[in-house]
Structure formats: C-alpha cells, structure tokens
C-alpha cells in the first residue's frame, strides 16, 4: 500500500464514520427540532382549510367520523411513530374523496400546519415531501 492510498483509505473511513454519524443524527431528530418553517405552515393552513377542514374541523379538533388532528388523543396515537408514517397515511388516503388531488408537496405543507397547531416549533428548513427523509423524524407528543 502506498502512502497516498493509505491516506485516501483513512479519509474514506473518516468520511464513512462522519456520514454514519450524520445519519444517526437524522434518526434521532424529532418534531421538537424545528422540522418545518413558519412560511410552510402558513401555506399548509390555507390548504388545510380547503381540503381538510370540512371533515376534521377548522380547529383540527375532529368531528363525527373524522378524528382530531391535534390534541392529546392524536398525540397519544401517533407518538413514537415517524412523520414518514403520518405522511404516508395522508398520502395514500387523504382527502378521502380523492387522495390524488392534493400533491405530495401540499401534503407536506399540511403536515407543517398540523405541527404548528400542535405547538411544535418551526425551524429554518421546510419539511420535505420525501417519505424516506420524513421517516427519520420521530413524532413525539411530549418534549424529550
């Protein structure tokens, strides 16, 4: 092994360790870490009013068939799962009349609005629509 290849190998190991650390860091992110932006939540509020409020109520407190999307019971049911789980649930089944009429990006915005109403802090980066990334963000009802 040449000295150069040894250096490259060492660097590769360090990069790999750093990447793994970054991934681990992502895995430990939660909704308490500022995972959406205030601007995104504002967009989500408008979208929620158009597509969700008629069943889930303007205050997200649910009505008849549609469960609340905020509050203690919602938190208890989803706590421990990930935003990927929540996003996937919405992606495949909501709005119930036609899940396809709201885009993935819009659904991410609606989730941002739900987080804002739920009292979770906004941050500098928008919530992505990529489910794989969302799966690395835990939904924790109470602050860890």
């Amino acid at each position, binding site marked *: 092994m040449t000295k150069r290849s040894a250096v490259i190998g060492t660097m590769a190991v360090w990069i790999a360790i750093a990447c793994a650390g970054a991934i681990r860091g992502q895995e430990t992110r939660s909704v308490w870490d500022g995972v959406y932006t205030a601007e995104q939540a504002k967009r989500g509020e408008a979208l929620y009013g158009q597509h969700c409020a008629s069943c889930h109520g303007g205050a997200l*407190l649910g009505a008849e068939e549609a469960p609340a999307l905020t509050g203690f019971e919602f938190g208890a049911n989803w706590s421990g799962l990930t935003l990927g789980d929540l996003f996937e649930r919405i992606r495949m089944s909501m709005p119930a009349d036609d899940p396809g009429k709201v885009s993935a990006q819009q659904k991410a915005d609606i989730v941002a609005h739900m987080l804002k109403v739920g009292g979770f802090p906004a941050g500098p980066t928008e919530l992505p629509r990529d489910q794989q990334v969302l799966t690395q963000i835990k939904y924790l009802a*109470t602050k860890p």
Partner: protein
Amino acid sequence: MLPTFRPVALPLLSLLVALTCTDAGLAGQGRQRDGEWTTYGGDLASRRYRPFDQINRDNFKDLEVAWRFKTDALGARPEFNFQSTPLMVNGVLYTTAGTRRAVVALDAANGELLWMHREDEGKRGEAAPRKLSGRGLAYWTDGREERIVYVTPGYQMIGLDAKTGRRVPGFGRNGVVDLKLEMDQTIDLETGEVGLHAAPIISGNTIVVGAAHLPGGVPKSRNHEKGYIRGYDARTGKRLWIFHTLPQKGEFGNDTWLQDSWSYTGNVGVWAQMTIDEELGMLYMPVELPTGDYYGGHRPGNGLFGESLVAIDLKTGQRKWHYQLVHHGIWDFDIPCAPILADITVNGRTIKAIAQPTKQNWLYVFDRVTGQPVWPIEERPVAKGDVPGEWYAPTQPFVTKPAPYDLQGVSIDDLIDFTPELRAEAVTLVSRYKIGPLFTPPPVSKWEGPRGLIMVPSSTGGANWPGGALDPETNILYIYSFRQPTVIGMINDPARSDMNFINGQARDPDAPPPAPAAPGAAPAAAGEGGGPALTVQGLPLLKPPYGSITATDLNKGEIVWQVAHGETPDAVRNHPALKGLNIPRTGRAAGRIGTLVTKTLVIAGEPGFFTMPNGQRGAMLRAYDKASGAEVGAVPMPAPQTGSPITYMLNGRQYLAVPISGAGYSGELMVFRVPQPATTTSSR
C-alpha cells in the same frame, strides 16, 4: 368429592350450554339462532348479549388468536378505520371491509375467504359523504333463500346471495336498489349529499335503511338534502313506505318549523343503528339534528323530529310516538346509536322499556309501548345565547334518573388537578373561552374572548355510534363513554357558506392571513387560525377518567359500577410533571368503543394506542366481571378496537371477533378463542 372433567368434556359442555341457553325475555327478537350473531346488535333489541361462558374469568388471559383477516386489498388503498361489526351465520362470518366497502364471507372457524363482493361506484363513491368500510351488513332468510344486504358508500342497497356473493337478480334491478331514488326529493345521483354507513336492519320481510350526510359544522348551505327513512321489501327491493323525519306540509310536526324553514332545511336523518320490537311490530329510530350543527338561525322552532327518538309501525311507517331529547339543537347531539330494549321491573311493575344512550351522557328510558318516560324527564329553563339571528329553545328536557354516566358541561372543578401548577395553567387556558353546564349555547368567536365554547361532552360524545350492551338476565346496561373537550365558536364566512354562522374560530387580527394556495383553488378557511390543542403541558385539560365503562341497573335506574377503561396513556405515565405521583388508571379517550356482554363478562377493547406490558405498541382487549366491574383478564392486540366485538359458538368452541385498526395500522379482524385442551397422550 367434586366431579372432574376430562379435557374433551369441555367443548361438549360448551356445546350443550350453547344449545340450551336462549335469551331471557324478548323471545324471538330477530329469530336469533343459538351460537350465531345474525344482526348488527346481536339481536333486533340491540342488546349485544350472548349467554356463552366458555370464555370466562379463568381463561380470558389465555385467549389465543384463532385466525386473523387483513382488509388491505379490499379497495384501492388500505383502510385505517375499520368500524364494521361482523355477522356469523351457519358457520360463515360476513363483514364489510376496506375502503371500497367490499363484503367478504369467511369460514368462521379459520378465516378462509369464501367469497368477496365489491362495487366500483366511480365518482359516485368518491363523492359519498360516508365512506370506508361502514358499520356492517344485514342477513335475511325465508328458510330457503339466504341473502346479505348492505348499503354502498354511494347509497345503493345491494342484495347478495349469501352462499355465492352474487347479486340477487330479483332484488331491485339486478340486485341493486338505488337509494337516491324514491326519496320524495330530487337528488343528484352522483353528487347528491346523502349516504349511509350504518347496517340496514331487517325484520321479517322488511328492510329499513337510514340516511346520513357530511358533518354539519360547516354546511355549505341552509338548503340541504333531507334524510328520510324508508322500508323495503326484502324479497323484491320494492319501497314499502317512507317516513318524513322532517315533516312536510300538513304532516304531524310540520308546525314546529317556523317561517317555512322545513321547506329548505335538510339532514334530520338516521345515521345510527335502529332497533325493532317484533312482537309490537315497532321500529325505533334515533334521529339526528337538522342542517347546521351549531347554528339554527335559519330553522327557527323546535324542529321535529330532530334529535328525537321516534317509534313507528314497522309495516306501514306510521308514527306511533316520539320524544324529542333536545329542542332546536345547536350542540350536534345527534342521537348516535341504537336504543336498547329491556323488559324491566320498576317498583314491582313490569315495563316494556327502551333505553337510549346519547352523546350527552344521559340514558333516556321510556315505556316503549307508549313513549312515556319511566322516570321523570323535566323541562327546565336553559341559558339563552347572543348569536345574532339564533332562535333559542327556552327549555330543554332534563333526565332525573338514571344519573348521567359521564361529565355534562365544564366547570373549574372538572379541570386537570394532578398538581396545583397544572390546575392554574388550565384555569388560564379556559379563561379565553366560555364554559358552563350542559346546554350552554356556543358564542360568536372573538379573538379577545370568548373564542368559543369548550364543550363537554363534545359533538362526538360521551357515547357514540357503538352504543351499549344489555344483560337481559339482570337488566344491567353497559356503555363506554369518553371525555374529550372541543371548541365550538360561531363565525361568519360567506365564502364558504350561505349560513349566517358556521363553526370556526376568530383569527388573531395581528397575524398575517394564511398564504394563498394554488390559483383557482377554493377560498381558504378565513376566520380559522387552526385551533387550541386544549392541553396543559401536553396533558388532557380535564380530570380523568378519560374513558369509562358504566353499568346501570335499569330496574332501579341506578349506576351499579363504573371503571376507567383503558390503561393510562403513555404521555401521562411518562410525563415529567407527574413524576412521583400515584395516578390511578385513567382510561383512554382516543376512540369509540362497543361493549359485549356474555354470561359472566363485559368485554371491550381499548381505544387508542399505548405501550403494552409486553413493550409493544398496541391496545388490550379487556374483560370485566359483569357483576362487579373488576377486571378479570386482558390480552394484547396490535391496534385498538374500532369495530364492535361479537362472539359466536362454532363446533363447540366460543370465538370472539374484534375489528381493529388505527394510526399507522390498517384494518384487521382478529378472532380469539380459548386454546384447545390437550387430548393426546404423551409420548415418552
């Protein structure tokens, strides 16, 4: 010396019990055959009772999964709110399931799929106000033919051959009765806002179907489809009668609609299950409220038969009696579930009674022949609100007995008090809202306050659609209820409704409006800035119990016992502010739970998820001693109960079927039984 049973004797004994046990009283209700569960409520009296005892206090904890059936493929996407109550007839379990509301027939012994029926209703199904798997289906036989009857999301009644799953050609048009026709009003077949998720109810050759609509907190218009109730011939699908739950000109009750408001107002359907007394030939209908769940300014008057229990002749549809439980409702106290029949004895007098559980936590008990209350129901003055244009009923009926089975209204004393700090925060939170006793009217929402009425029970109860269960041997009625506050405020938003007021909350006038969405999209919910979570440091605003099961003796009109149903939520158990405190089991409120009563047990699954004793996320199926309320056993399930449990006997073994689903867990039918005793000789 006591006799001992060899293991093989157990199934034989159970079979004997099943064959010899017949329901006490109300004989013949629904021609219930031993071992089976042939109608939604267990019988037409809606008692959800079976006198089986193979599953009992000694072995409940040992229940094993006999089989399970996942519903994901019954529709274009999985369903997460599987609410059906299955039927079991002749060894076959029938249920609606999946987002398409398909019907499946399964071998009740092992879950093998025997047939599946689906209707692809296209846009009609997509526009349906009541989607998903629905509450269940109905079974009919004349002794030769057997049929399964159900209502699709698009409001078509389908008649199927119970053996093959094929449509019955002679029923309606090729097995289909279009329920949007012959409804005494013009309804758009594709977009007309009427549907049903309840199961039809059948007695003799009469099928009865109700009507449901979208939730009515924010109706687009004061003009709305009416929810009339109809009877059909089970053989032909021909309409036999129609009952105008919103009476037309010249009909009884029309004068309770002032200013001709009957002509354009809608709803007043029956979305709950109904009940039949076959001996009396009477159908009992729990009716919902008219258009506008929280604002009735466009429908002045008491508005019969809104929020009334109505008894009609099953054969003719003619009214026999009615009792309005809420006058001119503005709280969405639709009567949510089947009334329950019981032949009770009060002070030595036998009464053919009917008990109606409600969202508002009163059990209303009447003589079901005459409609007279068994215990006094008093008209008492109630507060008048100040929403412009609203018409307020000056009095409301107050039940004097039995006592309410859960909280009615909110006072400071009802707020969380685990610690003085939590109570203080709760008091601050509610200071921005209006609180008060039952029948406190919702206010106009103002940012500076009151932002709305904190309403308990909320529009979802209290009790809700699963209703209760009754033990006919003791006349004790068991019901689950929950405490979950909601906020009701009145706002004006002409962009969304031609009603003067709809449900919503004032926005912070200093906050920027929500960002506009895509061009051409419908207007956003102006006037609604999201909502309060109504939590205190993430904990429920109210004191526990959050969910309860209450046993009420209908002979005495007294509560016998009450237990918190459901283990304490994780967020309470693990909350830092509660560290070191000893908090008794709180129950859980995250769902609507049906109860089942057997020879010795009351059985119900938990609502919502928690971390189970085995460390996994899920919910427990629990059994209580029906006499004392003491828990006698529990088994884990991967998700909460969402449909109501049933029990049946098959080949000498008792089964327990529970529909489950929930956050991140799609619908599944779980079927339990006691493990088969070992009968083989050991080999050494």
